[in-house]
């Protein structure tokens, strides 16, 4: 009984304590993001960089992507949006991410999966490069403390 009470108190404390939104300083976060920039799907060519971690099967990420395209006229001239595909474990989206990374036109594939919700073009054979990219992004996300999708950052700071 004593152990159960201790367990419950510990669990409550863990749940109640606020989540740390970002584990590293903005400067470090910027440096980390710089290492995976080439792995991102890039939208727009504006001066301000917006880095976003998304999961293809996450509803909020899908809505975020839809909004980006809806406002593309205003957004893409002012901002360059870097989209990093990073799996939410419970969504089991690894094969979707790898399928996007594996294609030549990853932006098109991203739209097919996230906006059209068409899974017919998913593949099961992925290149080593895709797997490495998947892992690189996951490593950076872990260091930064990405805890939700979409995880949006500007100037190394999360929203």
């Amino acid at each position: 009984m004593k152990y159960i009470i201790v367990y419950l108190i510990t669990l409550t404390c863990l749940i109640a304590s606020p989540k740390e939104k970002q584990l590293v300083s903005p400067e470090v976060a910027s440096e980390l993001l710089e290492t995976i920039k080439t792995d991102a799907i890039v939208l727009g060519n504006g001066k301000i960089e917006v880095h976003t971690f998304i999961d293809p099967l996450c509803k909020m990420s899908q809505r975020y992507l839809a909004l980006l395209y809806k406002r593309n006229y205003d957004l893409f001239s002012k901002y360059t949006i870097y989209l990093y595909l990073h799996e939410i474990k419970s969504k089991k989206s690894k094969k979707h991410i790898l399928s996007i990374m594996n294609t030549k036109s990853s932006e098109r594939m991203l739209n097919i999966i996230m906006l059209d919700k068409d899974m017919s073009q998913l593949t099961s054979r992925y290149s080593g490069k895709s797997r490495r990219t998947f892992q690189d992004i996951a490593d950076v996300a872990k260091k930064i403390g990405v805890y939700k999708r979409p995880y949006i950052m500007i100037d190394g700071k999360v929203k």
Partner: protein
Amino acid sequence: MNNFKNNLYIYFTLVLRFRIAIIAFFSVIFIYLAFTMTAMLTHNDDELWLQGSKEYNKLLSNDHALVYIQKLQLNVGEEAFSSKSIDDMKLLHSNLNALDEVIKINSPLTHTVISYSDNNAGSSLIEARALNESTIAEIASTLESSFEKFSQFYSPDKETLYIYVFSSKPVDFSNIYIPFKYDSIEVTEDQNIFKDMTLFAILLGTLFVLFTLTFRSLVPSFLGVVFIVFTTLFTISVYKYIQPDVPLHVSILLISIAVSIMDFIYIYNGWHILQASHNSNRSIYYIIMKTIKPIFWTTVVGVIGIGSLVFEKSIILQSIGYNIILSAVIAFILSFSFLIALLSFFKIEKPYLITKNSSKFVAKLEAGYEKYLLRTFGIVTGVILLACILFVMIQPASIIEESNDEVIHILLPLDGLTHASLRKLENFHHDITEHFEEDIVDIVSSYKYARGFSKGYDPSHTFEVSKINLTFLTFDFILYGIIDDLMVNDNHRVTIYIEEDGTDKNVILRWIRDWNQNNTTIIDDANSLLSAAKYDSINHMIIIVLFILCLITFVIYYVTRDKMFAFIALIVNTIPIVWFLAILIILEISLSIEILVAMLIMIALSSDASIHFLYYFHRNLQTHVSDEYSIERSFIEVGTPVGMGSTILLITFLLLIFANIPTISTIGIYSVVLIVFSLLADLFILPVLFIELIKSKN
């Protein structure tokens, strides 16, 4: 005096000698103007009020467009959130959005609310969201569960839905399908020749019938119609020459004609009566002699008093001023040339006097008036005057015109989305909410959303403007498509929704205009600009009303050289205004520009009657010994035309009430009340005061 009479006689003989030439001259001008006339009358006074007004000029100088905001009140029945209601609401949005002039719609479907979505499995998003993209079931459940966020769009019983339509020009809702029962919003039409012609036809028809009944002759009816038609056309033509780009408002023309017709009534009535003892031509000479002075002075009062409105910046007030000047001067010229020439072709056998017996009866009653009644009336009026002054001093806000629309749309010129701008907006939110806590339903601004987003991202932290991440905020504003609603270049848009039964919008508008000490706030919605324009004119109008009262007093003193006569003129013209103000205060009707315009018209007419009455009393005083006979003669010579003129004007203004033009209808209602008061004062107070004066002198 003899010199004056000689000159008048020479003038009279000249007019008679060249009567055909005079009639031909004015007729040729008339025909030329009738064929070349291009002027159109407008029924919409909003634009005229806006032109030249301070706030509208500020809007124009800043190159901002005018926005029209119309509030649709839709009856959604008992099931406000049913699928059908929401489906119908979507259909209405689609119909409204199809109109080119519609800029945006603010409704439960488009109202942007900041919400936090979290599935507790790593997906979360703070977003500014409107319901229009959701399914009908989602919309219904959101409205049910979060009603307080949308309560501004529903009546307390949820049976009426409010939708605000923002447009570049007024939307005529009768042209689109609205799938609800709703209170129709009239869009004032700019021009309607059929309506104008109907109004004039009724006016002329009324005049024709009244003259025929009063004088039992078709001569005054024919001459009256000719006189009005000539005066009208000449006034419009000269006005179009002076202000070619300003459309003439139909009511202003009616008012100026109504004022000028009095000249005809005085001259014709005098000529008609005189023929009982003189031939036609002799009667013309006598009537010129009798009426030229009072008509000249009433013209002077009209031209200087109301004509002073031409110095106002407001185009509509200028328009009233010009038209009164023109119609008064043209009527004066036509009366003593064209009308005299026309009269010389007619004669009346056994002239009929409709007011002969009634004049004698009323004169007898008034000659034997009870002094205590006059004193009591005087004391009551004095007390009412003091009460009115006290009331206005204690509650100055209550005299401001009420405005029923409930949205104020302003632009605050600031330096973009910066901490300083947001801090200024925060101060604005704080101050206006503190002043009008229960009257403000919602304030939509970048500050509202900045606060909403910041609280969404950091619910545990106390909100501070200085801590807002502006880069994120700008990104969010663009991402959620709300930046255009909130900002125009570097200026911030602020939309204030006011409680339906709360403080008058004018009071809030006044506060907003005073809040920004630099006076840079730009009001850009048409209704608020209109309210501001009318509000700004009120002080000027009060001064002009007082100025005309002083002018009448001065003119009467100049004509009679008697202080008591001048005092009586002031008293008689003030009495209707005092009683009218008392009624306004009792009925809690706030002072509006329409009331002040009506007061101007009443004073112009009242001054006409007072000047004629006092002039005739003064003349009769020197020739007749009996008070009763003096009053009787004045009633026949002045009371009849005053009564007739007032009846014609009453009918004209009653027509204006039914003209279905809000401002004009209001002017019509107040004018009718004021003219009745003025007529009562002229017929029942003025003669009694006059007798009192004679008795006190004896």
